[in-house]
């Protein structure tokens, strides 16, 4: 027995997996087109780490709480989750679905997401669902580096004349989407009750907002950063307009020949 498992907890883990997967996918799309070679390698490598987290979480979902069931989960069962053609079965946040055409947006999203991700893993570090606690420990060994990467770039770019303005404009665009990361899935209440997570994710939103303010040192008063009175949460059941094209890009090879066996 590896911990509690039911349909609610499945929703809870799936939402985390979908976020990690799409964030990883978006980062890796910068390979070959990031501002310079070294950054190109670093950013797509960080994306690969996120894809690794997603694979770990999808394996927990596919194994119904036990990723080592039957000697490990068949990759095809992970693919069925990761490339699910039905948008209604996804639980991703709109932040990770959004198309970012320029580097400033990609970098700001990287920072916003990873800052929230740290808080998210902390909530499940002592999870009663043992494989999830294990995934949290593993993820943090990589995440400190992701944050150092994002902070290192922002340290250099925010004070620079043109770059700083572009980054702050990107922040203004992305913040309304970023707060949606904290929207709970329907199963979160159950996940808290069974100790899979120690608290609702949006209880960490004030801490995240403090870090955003400290990092960007700007006037964020126009953005609603309070957990209680922001716009009605979607419950992560609706997909944004950007999701369709993103899923098509991800499924491009699969869709070439739907009958092929991988």
């Amino acid at each position, binding site marked *: 027995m590896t911990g509690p498992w039911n349909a609610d907890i499945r929703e809870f883990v799936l939402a985390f997996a979908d976020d990690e997967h799409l964030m990883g996918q978006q980062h890796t799309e910068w390979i070959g087109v990031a501002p310079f*070679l*070294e950054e190109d*390698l670093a950013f797509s490598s*960080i994306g690969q780490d996120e894809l690794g987290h997603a694979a770990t979480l999808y394996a927990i979902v596919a194994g119904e709480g036990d990723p080592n069931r039957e000697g490990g989960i068949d990759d095809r069962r992970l693919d069925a989750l990761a490339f699910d053609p039905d948008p209604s079965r996804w639980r991703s946040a709109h932040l990770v679905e959004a198309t970012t055409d320029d580097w400033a947006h990609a970098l700001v999203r990287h920072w916003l997401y990873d800052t929230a991700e740290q808080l998210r893993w902390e909530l499940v570090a002592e999870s009663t669902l043992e494989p999830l606690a294990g995934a949290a420990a593993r993820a943090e060994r990589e995440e400190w*580096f992701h944050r150092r*990467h994002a902070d*290192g770039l922002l340290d250099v770019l925010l004070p620079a004349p043109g770059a700083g303005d572009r980054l702050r404009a990107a922040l203004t665009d992305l913040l309304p989407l970023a707060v949606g990361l904290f929207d709970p899935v329907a199963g979160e209440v159950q996940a808290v009750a069974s100790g899979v997570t120690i608290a609702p994710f949006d209880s960490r939103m004030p801490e995240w907002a403090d870090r955003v303010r400290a990092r960007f040192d700007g006037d964020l008063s126009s953005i609603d950063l309070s957990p209680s009175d922001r716009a009605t949460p979607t419950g992560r059941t609706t997909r944004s307009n950007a999701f369709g094209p993103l899923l098509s890009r991800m499924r491009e090879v699969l869709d070439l020949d739907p009958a092929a066996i991988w």
Partner: protein
Amino acid sequence: MKRYEVFLKKDGRDEYRHAGSLDAPDDELALVLARESYLRRAEADRLWLVDREHLVVGNTDFVAPNADKPHRHNDGERIAERRKRLREAQKYTGEDAS
């Protein structure tokens, strides 16, 4: 952007070896980017980065004059020749020719 030279070393007896170079805006990002450019597959346990500006460089005119002094190359060739000659002399005479 600054250019850094990258040196890697595995734990154990091997020395630091030059692995390549990279561009980065400052030392902190140079470390971060070196890790992703040169160490993604656990190529080493230790890392040195040297800002190329800090290298003391000897140009080729300075280095080349020592390229024409074969007498400084002790490759053992003349000793080997002498030993071979003595060995063959011994073979034909059956005597100790040393």
